[in-house]
């Protein structure tokens, strides 16, 4: 569905996208994660035809997105992170305005717009003025608006930003629904856990380059071997530390009461051998566990130390 090759963009001396490569399949709900300034919005704006790339290739289906702007716009629905609405327009009129841009007018437009508002649970707000709607409702209305021409691809830049937990939950439900309907969706966020719950695939970007891409489980499993091993020892702690220091696969040691945290780069067999060595030396080990870490820790680890994935 989307093929991005060596996408390059700079603002003066600042390189926003550094030969970004990315491939997203049809029907994927792709989460685009990265810290602020990583290049998410730049990528999304290029994909939406709002920004000119300085180099590279972008294909959406058969359409060369960097060459054929009009064809691109027929294929995408875009929702920016910050957007405004027109005062003095009712929600249904707002929808009909965008429908008219795509040549859909009259009763056909009214029917389509009502269906889309139903889809985002706003059908009861059709006659309300847009500026009287809550932020969450405006977000959903904007999402419905982006669907008015039935695009293949939805590009949503931080769609849940500024929403309360309930509105976030509703938004997630709607996006999952749209994904089930076959829409390819790209969502950006700087909060990994927010995307992990709904995205089929996640890509992590930093400093304009894609660091890793895959399902949440895949990314976690790639990282798990770099997590520390936490060992609880109730006797002969000094002896245990001595053993750890002699072990070449142990990179660092930190002690917190009965717990010793090890930076250990070995595989599972090496972990088992280390545990056996402790027991052979009469060290009383209560627990010996490789920490799983949470998504945010993973995100911090990835964006702070990307070589762990290479």
């Amino acid at each position, binding site marked *: 569905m989307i093929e991005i090759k060596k996408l*390059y963009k*700079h*603002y*003066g001396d600042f*390189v926003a996208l550094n030969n970004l490569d990315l491939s997203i399949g049809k029907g994927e709900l792709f989460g685009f994660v990265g810290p602020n300034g990583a290049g998410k919005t730049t990528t999304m704006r290029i994909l*939406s*035809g*709002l*920004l*000119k790339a*300085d*180099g590279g290739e972008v294909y959406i289906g058969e359409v060369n997105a960097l060459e054929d*702007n*009009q064809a691109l*716009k*027929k294929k*995408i629905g*875009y*929702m*920016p992170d*910050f*957007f*405004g*609405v*027109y*005062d*003095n*327009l009712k929600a249904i*009129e707002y929808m009909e*305005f*965008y429908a*008219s*841009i*795509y*040549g859909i007018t009259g009763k056909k437009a009214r029917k389509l717009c009502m269906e889309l508002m139903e889809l985002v649970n706003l059908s009861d707000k059709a006659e309300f003025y847009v500026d009287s709607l809550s932020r969450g409702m405006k977000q959903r209305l*904007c999402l419905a*608006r982006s669907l008015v*021409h039935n695009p293949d691809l939805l590009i949503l830049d931080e769609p849940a930003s500024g929403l309360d937990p309930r509105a976030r939950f509703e938004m997630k439900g709607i996006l999952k629904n749209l994904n089930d309907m076959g829409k390819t969706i790209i969502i950006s966020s700087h909060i990994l856990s927010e995307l992990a719950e709904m995205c089929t695939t996640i890509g992590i970007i930093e400093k304009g380059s894609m660091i890793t891409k895959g399902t949440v489980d895949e990314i976690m499993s790639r990282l798990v071997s770099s997590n520390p091993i936490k060992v609880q020892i109730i006797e002969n702690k000094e002896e245990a530390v001595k053993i750890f220091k002699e072990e070449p696969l142990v990179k660092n040691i930190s002690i917190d009461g009965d717990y010793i945290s090890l930076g250990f780069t070995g595989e599972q067999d090496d972990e088992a051998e280390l545990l056996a060595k402790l027991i052979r030396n009469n060290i009383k080990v209560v627990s010996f566990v490789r920490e799983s870490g949470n998504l945010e820790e993973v995100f911090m680890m990835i964006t702070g130390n990307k070589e762990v994935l290479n």
Partner: protein
Amino acid sequence: MKINPVYAKELKLRSRTSKFAFTIIIYNAILIFIALLGFESVFNVNWNSYIDYSAASRIYFIIASIEMVMLAFMIPAFTAGSIAGEREKQTLEILLTTTLKPEQIIVGKLMSSISMVLLLVVSSLPVISIIFTIGGVSASDLLRFILLTFVFALYVGSMGMFASSVVKKTVQATVFTYGLGMIVCFVTAIVVFLTNLISNIYYYNVMSGTGPWPDVTGVLYILLINPAFTTINMIFDQYGAYSAMDMLQNGLNGKLPNFIVEHWYWCSIAAQLLCTFCFVKLAAHFLNPLRVKKSKKRGKK
């Protein structure tokens, strides 16, 4: 026929605000006040011991001039915020991701502003038509005035659209539009004046005040894009007392081709429409997010 969606939306939005109804009332109230004042001074025999019917034409002259001046101040206010306002409200970006082309957005916005101006002009017709009660101005004169007003609105409106596309804030765009209007109306006139001055200096200092005066009437072509001059020239022609063009030609020691002089009104309308087209194209260019920005076009590192 497919109506420009931006035009339809803008008309709907504008017609829903009380601001525009208020503008129409104020606009016509000023015109009525001036018309009544004119009539009072011309026909009140308690003030004058005679009635000068030819002075009625002067009332038309004054009303038409006032109307043009008011429009000159109002059109930038209508148009300069069109694009800048969308940018400030953060609605422009969404509009640019639709299949609408920048030209369509500009034309839709411009036409909605012009429609409002036309509504103002049409609403003022009864006031201007007061002049018909005593004669002196024909219906064709009035139609020429309305056409010129329409072209003037398009011209200044396109400047507003251009300013609105280039400048990000509404207030700055409005000031920029007034600046462009001043350049077109006053700077062109100053150029003509300076040319006359330089030719006089040249005649006396270089030619020692002998021989024929240097013919610099060619500079008058610049006034084709000056709507103020064309309005004055048209009103003078309709008034019948003087010819603004003859006065200038005499001052500049020559004569423009007869065709231009005789059809100045139409030539100026054509020139203003050409400028309007250029401003619209430029506005669309600056609105296009994918335009090549020369200052940022640097090589890949």
